[in-house]
């Protein structure tokens, strides 16, 4: 290859290498700032990713749908049309294969179909945290879940055109990062 061709090939590669993270940033940023906000009831647990750091995995209440469609396969794209219940939490109004034309919806992945119940993976089940806080968050949650004055733990998610960005996780009416710090500073009684 001539030097000029090599340089052109490199320029194209470099642009694609830049374009992918920038596109990820743009899509997430626009959804976060302009998307509608929904609260999803959730339970956190703590795993680990070798490159992206520690995160808490969220298990959502809204992960099953009753459906008459028996052709769902693992990995199929499932569009979930959203609504809010009387307490303001997100509920899945309907699950469909067709991309909805209007209204707020999220793009999820079908996991399995069992006896007319479709299980889905929501696209925002990872919440990355500072490495010491992720395990602490799980511990704090299990303690909180057993307490008397339990209020639902939920994920704050911005939704726009089927894209969704997980903004925060709220436990006992405060962001989970703050909750961890508050509980860490508390002396054991």
């Amino acid at each position, binding site marked *: *290859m*001539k*030097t000029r061709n*090599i*340089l052109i*090939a*490199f*320029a*194209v*590669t*470099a642009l*694609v*290498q*830049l374009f*992918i*993270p*920038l596109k*990820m*940033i743009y899509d*997430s*940023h626009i959804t*976060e700032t302009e998307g509608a906000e929904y609260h999803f009831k959730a339970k956190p647990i703590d795993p680990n*990713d*070798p*490159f*992206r*750091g*520690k*995160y808490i995995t969220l298990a959502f209440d809204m992960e099953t749908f009753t459906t008459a469609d028996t052709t769902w396969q*693992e990995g199929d794209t499932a569009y979930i049309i959203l609504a809010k219940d009387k307490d303001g939490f997100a509920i899945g109004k309907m699950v469909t294969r067709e991309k909805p034309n209007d209204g707020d919806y999220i793009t999820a992945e079908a996991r399995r179909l069992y006896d007319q119940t479709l299980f889905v993976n929501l*696209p*925002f*089940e*990872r*919440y*990355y*945290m*500072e*490495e010491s*806080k992720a395990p602490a968050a799980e511990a704090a949650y299990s303690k909180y879940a057993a307490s008397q004055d339990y209020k639902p733990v939920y994920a704050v998610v911005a939704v726009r055109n089927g894209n969704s*960005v*997980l903004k925060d996780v709220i436990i006992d009416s405060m962001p989970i*990062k703050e909750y961890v710090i508050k509980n860490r500073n508390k002396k054991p009684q």
Partner: protein
Amino acid sequence: MASIEKDLPELVANNVITPQTAKDIQNYYTSRKEPQGNGLLTIFGALGGILVGLGIILIFAHNWDDFSKSTKTMLAIIPLVVTQALTAYTLIKNKGGVWRNACGTLLFFSVGASIALVAQIYNLPGNLGTFLFTWIVLCSPLIYILRSNALAVLHVLFATYYAVEEGYFSPEKPWGYVLFIALLMPFYIQQLKEERNNGTAALNWLLPLSGLISLGGFLDGADQFGLLIYLAFAGLLHAIGYMEIFKDSPKKNGFLTLGEMGIVVILTMASFRWVWHDVIVNSIPHTFFIILWLVFLAAAIYFSFFHKGASKHFEPFRTATLVFPLIYFIGIFDDLVPSVLTNILVLALGVAVIREGVAKFDFAILNFGLIITSVLIACRFFDVNMSFVVRGLLFIGVGVGFFLANYVLIQKKKNKPETPSYEN
């Protein structure tokens, strides 16, 4: 420099240079050697790049709460742009191997750090497999652009990581792995033909090893038929190792060694009778597995007998690769006969290798044959219910056999002092 050499006939044809000058130029490049120590420096440059890159990723993975979202976003992009600029400089200035490999590895990890950090900032979904896939695809053109062996090695390592992650820990088959290996092939073949260096030697071992590891990721649901597929694949590696192109580097030939080891391990596993119980139960595998097996077997036969320069002779490992499928098909109807036949096959293989070792006065081959035989004997202890005394005596017998065989070979060698030594 190969490109200049390629242009020589054209230059001569157009009377730009005389045929003599063309010959002189060719001689100069053939005789020119890399400055001493350059190879080592390249390795350390690449290693430095890997360590620094991994360090950056780990520091980012801590997930700093003190940084605002915009600071983190800048941090995700800046290292990438800086290493891209460094790489562009390397290319424009036509820098040597040390620069190309060090910059390449740094850029490789900058790309990983960048997409990892963005995913972290915006809590983007996607499992580790998808993440690795994006990373490898974004960096694969760099192997060709920078002509970097370090990047080729990283490419194989990460492709294997991807295959293990997607193949062993999720129900999906890691098809991306096939794409990654195919992407690397033109580069690897060119390196084998034109430039033999440490990087090529590393790939000669890494590629077969990576294949042996990753193949399992495709075999979920194949059950015992997987043994047949693995054996055909190991046979293929072995046949590739015998090719003309590897003739001058027997010590650096991972295909041959790993192929032989693969064949021995699979056959030893198949020598247990319980393995054959399941063959009867699951006699008809999925079409995908049958096709996969046929492809590997056909390729192994092609490279063994029909490829240009193939030696065509029936050596022990080649024979075992071809005989085992016949035994397997008997296994569909019965479990005792195939396990007995596999034992005989492994024993014959061991004895054949010992004979070859003795004939060539090669201690490595001799002891490899002895190991095959004694592992087989040791394995039978798990199957057969015999007294500890008998087992003890058998072990002593095998140990004495080791000493004797080596002693005999030493004696034979002493009597033939002119024979070239292969001893390690």
